């Protein structure tokens, strides 16, 4: 199924500016895929000392798959594979996925690929995006390798949008370089909510995610948690929430950092 993007493409007529800014000022919230608003290529930046990057990518991907399934005629069960590609450095830094700890919906569908070099990782990502029996691709890449330049990320975006398979690229210990990803997140762990019975124990995981660059949404910060069925995101009130009153000029980059040419 091809993605039906609701945002118009440049160049934009002056009359459309109001409509466009209205679309763009709609904040991100979970479950947007049900409305046909997909971001096929996203990046999640995180530290290599914890697993929150891949956890958030997995949660967002599952949220998208869930809302997609709810939007379409509910099929019996989605049996397509979930491809998880790591390069050797990322596997050394953050370990490999552990089946008993994965969400129930992922356990029997996970296919893991270990690539020796970043070039191999990009090859595996692209091949995975081309496969019709893959529900989504999660990549994990450490640092800023030379192989992942703007051309390579543009290539990934185009492949993902052509075949309609979402790609989540987790960047461990990486700087915000030039990229063509449609949504770019930076995630840090947040203290978990205390469990009901043992308040001394760690509870359900929460993450503090910052959307610093997106093509169809204004940036923002959220505290995101996933309880297995629904993804809940509470917006942090660091910036004004209601942006529809004052439409911003089109084409202005929202955040100073993480400028992307494709936005």
């Amino acid at each position: 199924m091809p993605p039906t993007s609701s945002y118009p493409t440049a160049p934009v007529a002056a009359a459309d500016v109001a409509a466009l800014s209205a679309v763009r000022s709609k904040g991100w919230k979970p479950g947007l895929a049900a409305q046909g608003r997909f971001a096929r290529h996203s990046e999640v930046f995180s530290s290599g000392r914890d697993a929150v990057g891949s956890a958030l990518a997995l949660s967002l991907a599952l949220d998208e798959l869930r809302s997609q399934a709810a939007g379409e005629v509910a099929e019996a069960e989605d049996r397509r594979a979930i491809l998880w590609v790591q390069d050797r450095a990322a596997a050394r830094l953050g370990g490999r996925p552990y089946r008993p700890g994965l969400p129930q919906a992922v356990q029997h569908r996970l296919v893991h690929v270990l690539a020796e070099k970043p070039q191999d990782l990009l090859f595996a990502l692209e091949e995975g995006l081309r496969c019709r029996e893959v529900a989504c691709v999660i990549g994990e890449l450490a640092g800023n390798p030379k192989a992942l330049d703007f051309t390579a990320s543009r290539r990934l975006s185009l492949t993902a949008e052509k075949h309609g398979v979402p790609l989540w690229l987790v960047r461990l210990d990486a700087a915000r370089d030039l990229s063509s990803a449609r949504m770019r997140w930076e995630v840090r762990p947040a203290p978990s909510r205390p469990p009901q019975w043992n308040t001394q124990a760690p509870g359900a995981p929460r993450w503090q995610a910052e959307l610093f660059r997106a093509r169809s949404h204004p940036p923002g910060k959220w505290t995101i948690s996933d309880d297995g069925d629904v993804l809940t995101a509470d917006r942090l009130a660091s910036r004004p929430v209601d942006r529809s009153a004052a439409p911003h000029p089109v084409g202005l980059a929202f955040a100073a950092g993480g400028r992307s040419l494709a936005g």
Partner: protein
Amino acid sequence: MMLADARTLCPAIRVAPSDPAGDLDFLEKTALWAQRWGPWSALDPPDGVLVDVSAVAHLFGGEERLLTDMQAAFAARDLTVRLAIAPTAGAAWALSHFGPERAILAPDDDAEMRLSGLPVAALRLDDDVLTVLRRLGLKRLGELGTVGRDALHRRFRNRRSPAANPLIRMDQLLGRVPEPLVPVVPQQAPLVQRRLLEPIRHRELLDQVLADLAEDMARELEAQAKGARRLELGLWRVDGEVAVRALELSAATRDPAHICRLFAAKLDGIDAGFGIETVRLRASWAEPLALEQADVEAAAERHGTSLSALVDRLSVRLGARAISRPMPFASHIPERAQRWQPVMAPEPASQEELRFHARPLKLLDRAEPITVLYATPDGYPQRFRWRGQVHDVARVEGPERIAPEWWREKSTVRLRDYYRIEDGEGRRYWIYRHGLIGDGRGGLPEWFLQGLCA
């Protein structure tokens, strides 16, 4: 008798080493060759062949002439044979081994009477059963009938193996119970090759030859309704060198483009020398693959590749072990509880993971040692240092004690106390203390960080 003893007795003795596998191979070939006299044949190791000649004899001008023809054909191959035709496999075996030359038992003959003169060894029985029968004084087939069926039934109780029970063998001989036989079916690996007029030294030409071969192979496989699982490409060079490149596929396929694409990565390091003169492609392992409607497949191809094609492409470039899927394994030790298996392998039957076990999202390949400040002997961890950075533990749950698997490991292996912890910034880890103070299995316990929680 030792060979030296035999040589002493007869210095001119000819010696040949025993080759059971070769003999069986020859017997198989003989059985296939003998299908010229009948639609199917079966092996009777070590030295017999059964051919079904039902309703075939008239093609050779009768049963006597069929046997004469067989005798002549085997004599032309320097083989001595004893031939017999009978309504059942057992009777034919008995007549050929113990009957007269070229015996024929017609269906309307009285088989019991004709065969009653044969020795009991004609029943294809084990040696110990033959000994028992000889001690009982039963030497001929006819004498078995004089004892009474009940007495034999009581004496020989093994109903599983026909070779241990004369009654079953007798019934098979007379056609009262069926005797299943396994026919020999020839298997031929699909093979296509190109002998080149001019030796080729360039990669583009080789790619063209490979594309032609893949087309031929696809046609060959399609004719047999099969798909290749393993392909071997042999390249014969002018100077006598042979280069072989093998390819394993994750699922049966006969798509020429897919085969070419996979081989293209393997042909990079080929040294053509003075030129390649013969190229041969052989499917040494093929599995049944039904014919598919072409336009459906074409539509799917536009939409993307299949998972097996993805696995093939990735394993050709990254190595066969790079792509895998985690499977549960019955073990308490966390790193053993998951195994990496080939993607197309079926899911093994396993007990479900206990729901109250909280496991980390990711597991480090090797648990990393950490230095921990904790209240001895078994208090909660307060603070730890991992990869050069200090973490203050804010919340902790545990311990979850996992004892060593005593049935597998040495008695000196220490237990593990696992803690789920969260540090001041919200990072969640899975750490364990290896051993206890005073458990007699080592000094002070060490701490390790094994998993990263979501």
